[in-house]
C-alpha cells in the first residue's frame, strides 16, 4: 500500500478506542448499558452481538453522532467531537447506503475529503485501492451493495487514519470481495492501526479477527482473543451462541 511521506507509524501505534462506563438511553430503552472496553492497535478486533445489542449505537457514540447519557468514549485519549481533522485520526463505515444516489463516487469522496483539507489526488488513490477507479464517474445510485461497501471503505481510508471502525462491511460482497475485506483488515492492523469490525458472519470473523468483544443488551459479555474462545468452544460460532444465549432479543424460538 502506498503511504504518504511524513505521516509515520508512530502516530498510529498509540491509537486506541476507549469506552468508559458508556451508557445510552433512548426514552425508556437502554441501548448501551455501562459498557467499558478498549480496542488496541495492531490487531483486528471483532465486535459481536445479536441484533439490537448496541453495536451500532456504540459506534455512533464513539463518533460523537449521539450524545451518551453517561460515561465517555475516547479516541486516542480525546473525545471525538474535539478532533479538528477527524478524518486523519478516525475512519468509519457505518452504513454503506448512506450516499446520495445522484452523485458520482469521485464527487462523493471529494465532498468528504475537502472538509478535512484532503485533495483529489488522495481521492483517486483510495478509489484505486478499493477497486472502483473504473466507475469513479458513475452515479452511486447505480452501484450494487458490494460496490457501495467498497465506496464506504474508501471514505474511511481517505485520511489515512490510525483508527478504523467498520459496521458490517462484508454484507453484500461477493466471495472475492469478502476475501479482499479480510486481507485489507489484516493489512491495516499489521500496519499498526486500530481496527474495530462488526459482523454476524462467525466463520469470516474467525478468519479475520484476533480479538473479540461480545456485547448483548448493551452490556459487555466477553472480551477475549479468538484463540481463547476457540480453545474453550468447538468454534467461534459455538462460543458466540453460548455467550449470547441469554441476551438474544429478536430471535425465533428454537
Amino acid at each position: 500500500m502506498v503511504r504518504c511521506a511524513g505521516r509515520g507509524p508512530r502516530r498510529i501505534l498509540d491509537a486506541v478506542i476507549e469506552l468508559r462506563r458508556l451508557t445510552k438511553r433512548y426514552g425508556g430503552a437502554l441501548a448501551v448499558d455501562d459498557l467499558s472496553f478498549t480496542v488496541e492497535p495492531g490487531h483486528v478486533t471483532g465486535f459481536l452481538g445479536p441484533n439490537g445489542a448496541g453495536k451500532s449505537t456504540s459506534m455512533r457514540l464513539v463518533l460523537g453522532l449521539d450524545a451518551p447519557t453517561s460515561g465517555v468514549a475516547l479516541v486516542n485519549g480525546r473525545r471525538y467531537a474535539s478532533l479538528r481533522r477527524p478524518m486523519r485520526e478516525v475512519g468509519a463505515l457505518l452504513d454503506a447506503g448512506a450516499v446520495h444516489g445522484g452523485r458520482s463516487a469521485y464527487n462523493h469522496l471529494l465532498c468528504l475529503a475537502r472538509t478535512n483539507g484532503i485533495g483529489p489526488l488522495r481521492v483517486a488513490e483510495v478509489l484505486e485501492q478499493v477497486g472502483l477507479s473504473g466507475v469513479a464517474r458513475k452515479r452511486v445510485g447505480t452501484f450494487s451493495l458490494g460496490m457501495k461497501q467498497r465506496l464506504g471503505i474508501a471514505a474511511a481510508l481517505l485520511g489515512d487514519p490510525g483508527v478504523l471502525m467498520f459496521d458490517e462491511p462484508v454484507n453484500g460482497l461477493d466471495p472475492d470481495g469478502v476475501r479482499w475485506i479480510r486481507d485489507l483488515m489484516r493489512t491495516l492492523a499489521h500496519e499498526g492501526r486500530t481496527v474495530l469490525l462488526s459482523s454476524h458472519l462467525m466463520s469470516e470473523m474467525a478468519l479475520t479477527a484476533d480479538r473479540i468483544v461480545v456485547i448483548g443488551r448493551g452490556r459487555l459479555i466477553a472480551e477475549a482473543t479468538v484463540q481463547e474462545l476457540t480453545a474453550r468452544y468447538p468454534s467461534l460460532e459455538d462460543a458466540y451462541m453460548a455467550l449470547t444465549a441469554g441476551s438474544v432479543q429478536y430471535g425465533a424460538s428454537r
Partner: protein
Amino acid sequence: MSVLASEWLKVRSVRSSYLTLGLSLAAILLGYGLAVMAKGMFDSAPPAQQAKARIAELEEVVVMVPQLCLGVLGVLAITSEHATGLIRTSLTVVPRRWPLLAAKTAVVGGLGLVVGPATVFGTYAVARWVLGDRFSGAYSVPFGARWPLLAALSLTVVVFALLGLGLGAILRSTAASIAILVGLVYVIPIVIGNLPEPWSERFGSVMIGALPREIAGDFPTDSVYGSLLPPVPAMVVLAAYAVVPVVTALWLIRRRDA
C-alpha cells in the same frame, strides 16, 4: 473554508440543483410570455380602453417561481442528507457540526443572491422591452423609481432559500418542509385574507408577499395582503423569515442526536 468548498461541490454534483436553478431562470420566459400576451390585448383594444388599461407588476408574479425553486433547493440541501443517512457521515467529518450548516447557508444563500436578481431584473428588462410605453407608461418610468421594489423582490428569493434550508434542518423531512414552504406562499395568505378586519390587514402586512412593497414604500390601494409596515420594520420582518429558522437549526444541530 474547506467545509464551504465541500458544500459548494455537493450542490454542483447533483442534478436537482441544476433543475431548480434552471427552472428559476426559465421564469424569465414566463415573464416574457405574460408581457407578449398583455401587449397583444393592449394593441387590439380600442383607444378609450387603452387609456384606462393597467398592468400588474409582472416581476411580482414571476418571482414566485424562483421563490419556490430556491426554497426547494434549500430544503434538499439538508433533507437529502437526512433521507439517505449521509448526514451522519457529514457530521462525522465535521464534528463541530455548526460549520456544516453555516457552509450550506452560505452556498444556498449565495445562489439565491445570484438567481433572485437575475430573474427579477431579467423579467423587468424583458417586460420593458416588450411593452414599451403601453399601459400608461408602467414600464417606461425611470429605472430609479422601480429598482427598490425589484431589489426587495430579489431579496425574497434569498429569504426563501434560507427559510427552506432552516425548515429542512429543523424538520429533517423533505415532504414536511416543502409542504410548509408552499403553505406559506399559497395557503396562509388565503386564510388571512378571509379573517375579519383589522386582523386580515395586520397579519397580511407581515406575509412575505406584502413585504417587498412595504420595503420599497410603494403601497398599492388594492393589495391582497396588507400594507401597514414602514420600510425598515418590513425589512426586519423579511430578514426574520430567514434568520429565525437558520439560527434555530444551528442551535438544534449541536444538541440533537444524528
